[in-house]
């Protein structure tokens, strides 16, 4: 018996577990809830209707009896004395007409004893309370021994009507309880059907295959909005993945040229016996190319670092003012050696960030400005705290040759190098500087915007979220 019981228990548990799993499905939950709500509402309505109707029936019966009683009282009062032959026959005739409802009249004396009654009146009074409804009225002036009139009728017809109502109520409730799950299932089916397609599409998505989008049915409902939101996310992801892929390929290409230079230098050096000076100069070339490789690799690492959120660990509250000041102090002699007028305005502006990265950002911008501004040009660095918009604003403007409007959207792309300016030599650097600046600004929750006019100069503005300090 114990084993049997145990088996039964295990099976029971499995069934419960299965139903638990099933309950997680949106459709099942919709059906269940729908059934519960519909059944509850149907039952409540029926209950109220049934009781309300009974109450009304009861009231109207009482009112009728009261009217009858009043009429009899008035009839008796108009006579001087009770005459069974006249009044009694009349009342008995009415009782005969309403025999089905067991309508009756009792005339009572002072002690409440029966003086006269129609033959439909019940003989005993004990069960009256539930089987009959009755109304008692006193006479204003006794007519002979008669002082009170009691009119009554059987309650059975009302009961019968109530029972009929109950039968209807049960039938409708049962129908509701049966129909609710079916209706709920239909509704749930209709509501969840679009999800199936969305799920099927989403299941097919892969990082390498981000061209598919979730279906939008154009109804503007929640599901459409969800699909649109997810599609937006997919768009951004696709752009990012594409950028990463491009960037990886570009990085590999960029690493190639210093490698090629190293290889060529070394191989040529080995093709024939050379003097020590020749070897030394070849090795110096190789070290120079290694420097190029090294700076490229560290810039790529910096870029990767700013793009991952890992760097958040080192975030601190930083005042940009001393940082700006020390960088300017460092760059000043370089500007002076090129006769460039380097001006600056600053005020205290606190941001949350990684000091090394913010430093790299400004150094890069200044480096760019110094690189492109001709001798006797002008560079202006400005740091201000915009308390209204909660922004720390860094601005570096120069009087360089400017950037062609066609190049402007591309200058922050990785490895993008603008065409050589007319009269100028080819542009130095590996095309990562501004990409790094933008990445740093964005990783700090800020933006980097570039305005430029050919022949007039360039202005780079970095906006970072200001914090209170």
């Amino acid at each position, binding site marked *: 018996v114990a084993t049997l019981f145990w088996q039964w228990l295990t099976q029971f548990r499995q069934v419960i577990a299965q139903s638990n799993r099933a309950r997680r499905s949106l459709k099942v939950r919709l059906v269940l809830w729908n059934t519960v709500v519909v059944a509850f509402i149907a039952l409540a309505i029926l209950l109220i209707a049934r009781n309300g109707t009974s109450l009304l029936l009861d009231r109207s019966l009482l009112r009728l009896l009261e009217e009858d009683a009043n009429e009899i009282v008035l009839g008796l009062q108009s006579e001087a004395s009770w005459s069974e032959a006249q009044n009694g026959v009349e009342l008995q005739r009415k009782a005969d007409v309403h025999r089905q409802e067991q309508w009756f009249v009792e005339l009572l004396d002072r002690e409440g004893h029966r003086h006269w009654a129609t033959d439909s009146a019940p003989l005993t009074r004990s069960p009256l309370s539930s089987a009959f409804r009755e109304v008692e009225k006193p006479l204003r002036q006794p007519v002979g021994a008669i002082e009170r009139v009691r009119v009554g009728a059987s309650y059975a017809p009302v009961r019968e009507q109530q029972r009929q109502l109950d039968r209807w109520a049960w039938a409708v409730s049962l129908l509701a309880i049966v129909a609710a799950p079916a209706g709920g299932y239909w509704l749930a089916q209709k509501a969840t059907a679009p999800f199936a397609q969305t799920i099927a599409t989403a299941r097919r998505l892969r990082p390498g295959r981000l061209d598919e989008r979730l279906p939008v049915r154009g109804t503007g409902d929640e599901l459409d909005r969800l699909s649109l939101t997810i599609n937006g996310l997919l768009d951004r992801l696709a752009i990012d993945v594409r950028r990463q892929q491009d960037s990886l390929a570009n990085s590999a290409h960029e690493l190639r040229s210093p490698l090629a230079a190293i290889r060529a230098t070394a191989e040529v050096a080995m093709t024939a016996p050379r003097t020590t000076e020749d070897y030394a100069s070849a090795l110096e070339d190789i070290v120079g190319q290694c420097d190029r490789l*090294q*700076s490229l690799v560290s810039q790529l690492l910096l870029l990767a670092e700013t793009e991952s959120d*890992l760097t958040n660990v080192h975030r601190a509250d930083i005042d940009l003012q001393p940082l700006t000041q020390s960088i300017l*102090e*460092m760059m000043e*002699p*370089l500007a002076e050696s090129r006769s460039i007028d380097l001006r600056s305005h600053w005020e205290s502006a606190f941001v949350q960030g990684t000091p090394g990265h913010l430093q790299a950002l400004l*150094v890069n911008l200044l*480096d760019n400005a110094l690189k492109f501004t001709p001798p006797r040009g002008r560079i202006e660095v400005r740091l201000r705290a915009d308390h209204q918009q909660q922004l720390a604003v860094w601005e570096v403007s120069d009087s360089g040759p400017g950037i062609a409007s066609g190049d402007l959207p591309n200058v922050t792309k990785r490895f993008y190098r603008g065409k050589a300016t007319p009269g100028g030599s080819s542009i130095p650097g590996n095309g990562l500087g501004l990409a790094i600046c933008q990445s740093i600004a964005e990783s700090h929750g800020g933006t980097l915007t570039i305005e430029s006019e050919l022949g007039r100069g360039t202005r780079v503005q970095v906006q970072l979220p200001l914090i209170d300090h």
Partner: protein
Amino acid sequence: MKLLLVEDDESIGRAIHRGLQEAGHQCLWVKDGDSALRQLASDCPQAVILDLMLPDRSGLEVLRQIRAIGNQLPVLVLTALGSVEQRVTGLEAGADDYLTKPFEFVELLARLSAICRRSSGPVSTRWTAGSLVLDLTLRRAVREGVEINLTPTEFSLLEYLFRFRGQTVSRRMLCEHLWDASWEGVTNVIEVHLTRLRSKLDRPFSFPMLVTVRGQGYMLDVAENGGNRDTAPPPTAPGEA
């Protein structure tokens, strides 16, 4: 100096081994953590150059084991991983200094001698060497009794060169020192500042202290016969005491 080099990469190991021997050190080269620990016990080197990625166990583990037995000898860690966290982990495990691959050989030499010197004398805020005195608290430099007026950047550069005096310091080292991180800014900046520093530090005096080492970097040499820089630098450690 007797050194132990722990490096599993054949090419890097060979280059460092040869370079250290040519710099006048006695260098023993092992390629895994176990032999490193064995050599440490039997050979008593004066300093260790430790690669973090070894075939049998991580360099950090070797480092912790060295420190666990109470051995305080200077350890210079080499690694390809250069993020701040990794640097912090290395230093917390007991490394005296940290060098990210790829590095310049002059930097390895400079840092090596710096950590050996550091472990031998107390730290002072007033450094004297020859006729040059640096006051780190007041950020003042005095040569032959004459105060030299320096900008903060120039003083910072001089302080760094002083720390590695007698050793060649590469432009990249100075760059990293100025920028506080491994960010390679415009190297021109360093040159401009060094030129200014040189004009203030050397021009009014009888001999130049700030020497350019062709193709390698700069060196601060406080002794008057500073041109002879191929020989080992004169011991200047007492100056820090």
